[in-house]
């Protein structure tokens, strides 16, 4: 492959690196270039932008303001309340996901007729585009004609139609429900994979030792699932923190500020207020938070590499 390069460059490389390293470099070059352009560059540029006051309403006055954007953000009440809402959303989502994933994984770990079909059907929520997911739930939650109202009315749990997404107290849990519904399949697969790697002999030994089903679950299954749980918790937290699509489709950050989470805040600042400077700063801060979380993921994975 070095035939592609000009002769002198090829020679210089050949002298410095052996065949293996040269091949490796060539094979990796495309990936690294692509990622440098589409991943590394935006981060660097984002950081750069965050030091300027850039408002698209006044595109020619771009003063360099050091950390002013960050300070403005930190002083903004909306920023902090949106962080709070993000945390709230993430905590309830991830908890629900972890619990549901484990229950479903327990079921799918048993062998029974129709299990394959069930697994395949389980993938439906994962495959659905987030947009379609949002639409679907928006229609279900609809205050005038939605299925949720209809169902509850028929069950007799309410006596007239309620407002769902429009109620500030209910907004985030409802969005979380839609988010959880879509994320559960992937989380289940991750937990199921960990479950399947638990050696069967451990359960046999426990049976001989006299442990019943509940005891086997507590003493063997749960402790062995810890790395799986950690992975799911961290990954889904990352996903929850940066999630945007549902907030756009279901509530557009409202009503009022009821679902104004950090991801929405970035969008609002950048595309509604057209303040690219603060938008970048906020995006950059979110990037740092997710980076820290990802560090923990890679460490958890790293223990198994």
């Amino acid at each position, binding site marked *: 492959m070095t035939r592609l390069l000009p002769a002198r460059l090829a020679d210089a490389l050949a002298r410095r690196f052996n065949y293996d390293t040269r091949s*490796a470099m060539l*094979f990796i070059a495309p*990936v690294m270039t692509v990622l440098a352009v589409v991943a590394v560059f935006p*981060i660097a540029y984002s950081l750069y932008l965050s030091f300027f006051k850039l408002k698209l309403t006044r595109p020619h006055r771009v003063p360099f303001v050091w950390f002013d954007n960050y300070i403005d953000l930190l002083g903004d009440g909306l920023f902090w309340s949106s962080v709070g809402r993000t945390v709230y959303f993430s905590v309830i989502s991830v908890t629900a996901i972890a619990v549901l994933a484990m229950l479903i994984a327990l079921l799918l770990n048993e062998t029974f007729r129709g299990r394959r079909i069930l697994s395949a*059907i389980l*993938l439906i929520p994962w495959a659905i585009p987030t947009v379609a997911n949002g639409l679907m739930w928006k229609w279900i939650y609809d205050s005038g004609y939605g299925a949720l109202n209809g169902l509850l009315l028929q069950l007799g749990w309410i006596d007239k139609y309620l407002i769902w997404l429009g109620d500030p107290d209910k907004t985030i849990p409802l969005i979380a429900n839609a988010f959880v519904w879509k994320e559960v399949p992937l989380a289940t697969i991750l937990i199921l994979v960990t479950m399947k790697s638990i050696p069967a002999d451990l359960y046999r030994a426990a049976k001989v030792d006299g442990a019943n089903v509940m005891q086997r679950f507590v003493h063997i299954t749960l402790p062995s699932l810890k790395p799986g749980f950690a992975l799911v918790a961290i990954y889904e937290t990352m996903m929850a923190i940066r999630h945007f699509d549902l907030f756009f489709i279901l509530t557009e950050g409202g009503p009022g500020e009821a679902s104004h989470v950090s991801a929405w805040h970035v969008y609002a600042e950048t595309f509604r207020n057209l303040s690219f400077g603060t938008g970048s700063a906020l995006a950059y801060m979110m990037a740092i938070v997710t980076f820290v979380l990802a560090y923990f993921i890679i460490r958890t994975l790293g223990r198994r590499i």
Partner: protein
Amino acid sequence: MSTKPAGYRYRERPRLPDLAYKLAIFAASVVLLTYVLAPFAWLVSSSFQTEAEIVSVPPHWIPHEPTLENFEAIFFYDQEEVTYESRSKADPASGGYIPSTAKSLLPAMWNSFKVAIAVVILNLLVGVPAAYAMAKIRFKGRNASVYTILTTRVIPDIALVVPFFLVIKNLGLLDSLWALILTYLAITVPFTVFILVGYFESLPDDLDKAARIDGCSRFQTLTRVFLPLAVPSLVAVILFTFLTSWNEFLLALMFTQTQAAQTLPIIVASFTSDFTISFSFINAAGVVAVIPPVIVAIMFERYIVSGLTAGAVKG
């Protein structure tokens, strides 16, 4: 229970625990099926209802007068010109309000498809050699490369938006599919590499050595020996990349403004902000948007699971 002679109590399989177990599994399966399918079923059911029926209180779970008119509007969009006149004349209760963007649904789907295919091809071209190198070649900086690539996915999409927007705007690419293709690479390539590296690592090292002794260059080793063996993971990568690209919303929202370049999720989302909403039509659009990925996912379920596990279990 009949009393058996001493010592014969455990001769037959006890019925009760066996039954209880089977019952529990059945009940749990039904609950799971309901949880997964009920919302989806409601979506499908709604799409077959007329506007008049869909606003019933309480809702008709199964359409009493199923109709295909919503789907007709989508697929035969060029047959009925929807103008302001024809819309304002129609009575909401009789149904038939089709958003003006309806006729861009299928073209948008075609856009989504073009983008997805391009992203898949580029992912494979770029990711496969890199994954092979990182899995099988010992070189300085191998671990660093792996970590770097994984880390890039850490960046939330939001952070990509602003810098990309400015660059793309300045390059004049704002409304083209290329903007999407390039940015989608950022969100798909790291995962692709992750899956492929995991799978390649699980293939025996000895094959690599044998091939090179037999005279293959590194590239030939990759193409002739490892690629055929890696088919399951390649399938998984194609699926993941295709689905991610098909479903992506945020970046497409930012970078495309006219229907020339808009992809399916954007069009579908735009229905919700259209002031004359035809509920049943929206649901039909949702169904159309959903069917391809769902079919793909169900057909290739085995590959999806094994593609994920190859990476996660082997590390």
